[in-house]
């Protein structure tokens, strides 16, 4: 039972790191639907770095490439004012091509020397993810910087008038969001999977994206969501560790996380929740800031 829980906590780690980054950039008003692509880039960069230099450089390089493409998204969506969905989709499509070209030649498991350390079978990265969430929660709700980020996401015009640099804040949040997505990807390929296979994210990035919506843009609710979906995801992959006689075939179980996402989305989109939802949704989410 414990190995299963440890594995599902590791899936939760991936979801949590990626989603909390997305949460940050959404709080500043920038949607990044390319999060799956950023995770792919981070996963590829991290995996290749791990092959040559080991695990710590893998995480750093995964973060750097995630940040780089977060910057690309920031340039496209904040400075060039391209529609944020288009920009994110463009990055995702690019990532699928680039990662195939770049990393598929290294397909296969990591050599034995670079296996992640584990505390009772759980990667210490889980605790780092918790720290990241708490830090982002603290910044958003207790600091001046967090107030600036939220004001940029709610009403960029008012923020600008009161002296907040809107463009700069959005750049900062989008780059950090990208770095965290890249880190999540690097963790996925080097630790959770420990091997490279063609396009390994398999929809995890999209679940992380949906988790941000479920969370009402609050990091601590996000934590609960990530734990739940980490469990569902891992259960779909290895149900026999819970109960050997699961009657459903594997592909049917693999639909489970996606079905669950639709169900939760439907529930929180109901009128009753929607009022609450509308209140916590950053007002200027997805809108480019155009100074007139």
């Amino acid at each position, binding site marked *: 039972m414990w190995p299963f829980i440890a594995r599902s906590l590791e899936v939760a780690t991936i979801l949590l790191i990626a989603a909390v980054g997305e949460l940050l950039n959404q709080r500043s008003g920038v949607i990044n*639907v390319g999060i799956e692509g950023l995770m792919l880039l981070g996963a590829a960069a991290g995996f290749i770095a791990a092959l040559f230099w080991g695990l710590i450089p893998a995480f750093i390089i995964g973060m750097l490439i995630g940040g780089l493409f977060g910057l*690309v998204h920031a340039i*496209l969506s904040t400075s*060039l*004012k*391209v*529609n944020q*969905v*288009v*920009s994110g*989709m*463009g*990055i*995702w*499509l*690019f*990532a*699928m*091509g*680039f990662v*195939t*070209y*770049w990393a*598929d*030649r290294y397909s296969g498991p990591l050599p034995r020397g670079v296996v992640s350390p584990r505390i009772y079978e759980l990667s210490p990265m889980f605790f780092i993810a918790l720290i990241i969430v708490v830090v982002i929660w603290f910044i958003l709700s207790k600091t001046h910087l967090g107030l600036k980020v939220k004001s940029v996401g709610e009403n960029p015009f008012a923020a600008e008038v009161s002296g907040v640099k809107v463009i700069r804040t959005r750049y900062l949040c989008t780059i950090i969001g990208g770095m965290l997505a890249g880190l999540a990807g690097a963790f996925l390929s080097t630790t959770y999977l420990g091997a490279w296979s*063609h396009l390994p994210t398999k*929809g995890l990035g*999209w679940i992380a*994206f*949906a988790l941000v*919506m479920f969370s009402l843009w609050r990091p601590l609710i996000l934590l609960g969501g990530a734990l739940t979906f980490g469990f569902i995801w891992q259960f779909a992959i290895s149900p026999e560790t819970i109960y050997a006689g699961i009657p459903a*075939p594997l*592909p*049917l179980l*693999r*639909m489970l996380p*996606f*079905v669950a*996402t*639709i169900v939760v*989305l*439907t529930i929180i*989109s*109901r009128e009753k929740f*929607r009022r609450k939802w509308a209140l916590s949704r950053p007002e200027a989410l997805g809108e480019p800031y*155009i100074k007139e």
Partner: protein
Amino acid sequence: MTSLETLKLKLERVPVVSGGQAVRISLLSLVFSFIIFSIFLSIEGANPIDAYSNIFSFALDPNLGLPTTLHRGLFLLFSTLAFVVAYSARLWNVGMEGQFYLGTIGAFAVAYSLPELHPAILIPLMLLAGAIFGAGYGALAGFLRGKLNVNEVVGCLMLNNIAFWLVYLLTVGGPWAGIAESTSRPLPPNAHAPIISYTPFTSYLAIGIAIVLYIFLSKSVVGYKIRVLGNSPTAAQHIGINAPRTYILVMTIGGAIAGLSGYHMWAGDPAFLMIPRPEAYKAIGDLTYWGLIIGLVCLLNPVAAIPTSVFIGSIMMGSTVLVRRLRLPFGLDVLFLGLVSITFAAFQFFYMYKVRRMK
């Protein structure tokens, strides 16, 4: 005179982009992505000019790549039209992948259960089943968006992943499993698409749908309502347009069009005539997202999407020679497509702004 101070640039908002400008912007972005890709080609030790001439001479040679170019290009046209009809109401239909999978399931279900039928009956039935399955899946996303307010981008992506596993369930060790590992049984001969001058007849169907859709969106009352809703939801509310119903309608039409591509893809290419292994059908499914890029590049004009889709199809087909004939590393072809898509996305900027030099 040319000191730095005189080089001040100013952004000017463009109210409406004309078709001619869109063509110019698209060509410019293509040139840009070709230049960037030249860098990668040089890194891999290939001569870019040589590579590009190889790509297009292969893709457009009737004896080599042209049939596949047309086939893949018009496959993209189905996805593009599915996107365009929904986006006319400003709904992001990114569910073409799932609708295409469902269309595949519909068409194959008919072919496997009635293999002895005469082609003149079987093939239309397969197309019809594909369209109905795709339409149902599109309608589901439209219902979630229209009636239950579920965000359509996330909703569609989840449905796409579900559909991927649904095909997996049927083919890999499922009721449709073939003799070869993880592919489906071959289609019965009666289901093979007739080829009319290099390309299956469904290619012409796609072109026909594009023209009908153009007339529907620009001339019909329903098309007008869809566009009003897309341009101004408040105006639409005032003149009594039922938004939820329109959302379901556009997603259903889009889903039906994307569903048809299930038959077109697998029955129209002699290399398939079955559902291939999961990585291979997923790779085709990933191509459907090009519908979004092509639709936006063409300013949602279904007729302009015809040549654009075929052109992207020629890049798709032609770039495979990099790996197969020029012996360059695997994946370089998909990298090329990725570069084209991200530059198209970036060049959307010029659809909204003009850069002016201030004097």
